[in-house]
C-alpha cells in the first residue's frame, strides 16, 4: 500500500470508526474530569492523550494513507463545533495539517518515531481545547461573574493555572509527556498485538 494511493471505501470506514472511537473516549474523559477544575484544567488532556495514543497509532498504520490525521482532526473539530466551540474547527484543521506535515515523508507511516512525533505534537496542541474556550468566553464569563458578585480575586484564582507561567509550563510539559508515553505504549502494542495478528 502506498500512502499516495486513492482512498478506498475500507479506508474511509476504518478511519471514521476509529476516529469516532477516539473522539468518544476523549469526550468521556473530559466530561468525567469536569467534576474538579484542577483535574479538568491540568490533567484531563494529558490523560486523554495517554489513553488515545494506541488508537491513533493503529489508525495511521492500518489505513496507511495520507490525510488520515487530517480527517480525524477535522471530525474532532466538527464535534467541537456542534458543541458550540466553533473556533476549534479551524484550529484542529490547522493541527491536522501540522501532523500531516510531520508524516509527509513517504516511509513515515511505517516509522513509529514519526508517528510518535505527530502524536506528541498533537498532544501539546490539544491543550487548545482548554485554553481557547477560556480565552474566547472569558470576557462573557467575567462580566457575568462580576455581576454575580464574585470578586476579581476569586475569578483569577480560578484561572490561576492558565495565568501563572509555572503552572502553564507544568501543564504543557505534563501533556506532552503523557502524549509521548502514550505513543511508546501504542508503538509497543502495535508490535505485540497488531503486527503479530498481521493486520498492519
Amino acid at each position, binding site marked *: 500500500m502506498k500512502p499516495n494511493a486513492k482512498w478506498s*471505501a475500507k479506508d474511509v470506514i476504518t478511519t471514521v470508526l476509529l476516529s469516532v*472511537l477516539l473522539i468518544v473516549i476523549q469526550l468521556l474523559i473530559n466530561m468525567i474530569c469536569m467534576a474538579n477544575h484542577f483535574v479538568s484544567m491540568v490533567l484531563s488532556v494529558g490523560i486523554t492523550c495517554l489513553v488515545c495514543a494506541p488508537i491513533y497509532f493503529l489508525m495511521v498504520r492500518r489505513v496507511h494513507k495520507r490525510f488520515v490525521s487530517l480527517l480525524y482532526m477535522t471530525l474532532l473539530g466538527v464535534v467541537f463545533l456542534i458543541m458550540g466551540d466553533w473556533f476549534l474547527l479551524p484550529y484542529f484543521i490547522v493541527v491536522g495539517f501540522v501532523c500531516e506535515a510531520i508524516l509527509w515523508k513517504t516511509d513515515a507511516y511505517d516509522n513509529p518515531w514519526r508517528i510518535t512525533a505527530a502524536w506528541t505534537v498533537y498532544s501539546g496542541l490539544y491543550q487548545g481545547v482548554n485554553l481557547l474556550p477560556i480565552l474566547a468566553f472569558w470576557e462573557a*464569563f467575567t*462580566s457575568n*461573574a462580576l455581576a454575580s458578585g464574585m470578586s476579581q480575586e476569586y475569578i483569577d484564582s*480560578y484561572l490561576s493555572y492558565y495565568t501563572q507561567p509555572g503552572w502553564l509550563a507544568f501543564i504543557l510539559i505534563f501533556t506532552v509527556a503523557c502524549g509521548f508515553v502514550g505513543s511508546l505504549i501504542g508503538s509497543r502494542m502495535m508490535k505485540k498485538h*497488531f503486527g503479530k495478528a498481521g493486520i498492519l
Partner: protein
Amino acid sequence: MGKQDAGFAAPVRLCVFAATLLGVFLTGGTERTWIIAAMLFLILMAQKAWKQCAGFAVFYGILSLLLYLIRFHGLRMAVFSEFHVFLFWWMTPVFMAAWNLVSTPPGELSAFFARVHAPTGAILGMLVIFRFFPTMRAELRGLRESMHNRGLTGPAQVLRHPGNTFEYILVPMLLRCLQISDQLAVSAAARGIDTPGPRHSYYERKLRARDILAAALYAGGILAFLLTGGIK
C-alpha cells in the same frame, strides 16, 4: 401527521443550527440567550420531539436555577465550577440545535448529502458514524462479560495491573473495530459502493411549506434578536 413526518427536513435543521451559532456567539447581551432557547423549544415542539423537549427543559431549568443562586444568593460551586454552569447555560441553545441536527434520520441526512453531490466517501462516513453507537454498545457488553468470566474485572486484578487492564480492554475492542470495518467495507463493495455518477436516495424529499416557514421564522427570529439586543 405522524412523528416521522413532523420532523423538519435536513436543510432546515442545518439552517436552524447555523442561525443558533450566530445568535449565541454574536449577541451583545448573553443574558438574553434564553430567547433563543425558547425559540428552539418551539422548533422541537413543532416536530413533536416531546422527549427531547422535556429533557432539555429539565437541564436548562436546573442550570438557570444554579445561575440564579450564584448571581443573587452568592452560591459557590464545590465541584463543577461556576464557569461551567455559566458556559453550559449559555450553550444550551447550541446543544439543542445540535441535537436537533444529529437526530435527523440517517436516511434523510444521506439523501441531503446525495442531493448536494457530496462524495460517496462522505455519505459512507456519515452512515458509519450512526452505526457506531449501537454496534459498539453490543461489543462492549460482550467484552465486559468475557472479562468478568476470565476474572479480569475484580478490583484486586484491576488495581494491581492497571496497565494490563488497559490492554485487555483496548486490544479486543480495536481488533473488533477493524474486523467490523472490514466486514462493512466488503458489504459495501458487494453492494456497488464504487459506482460512479450521481446518487439518489429513498428518502429524498421536496421541502414542504412548513419546512420553509420554520426556517424563515427561525432565521428571522435570530435576526430580530441580534438587531434588538446589539452585536458584540
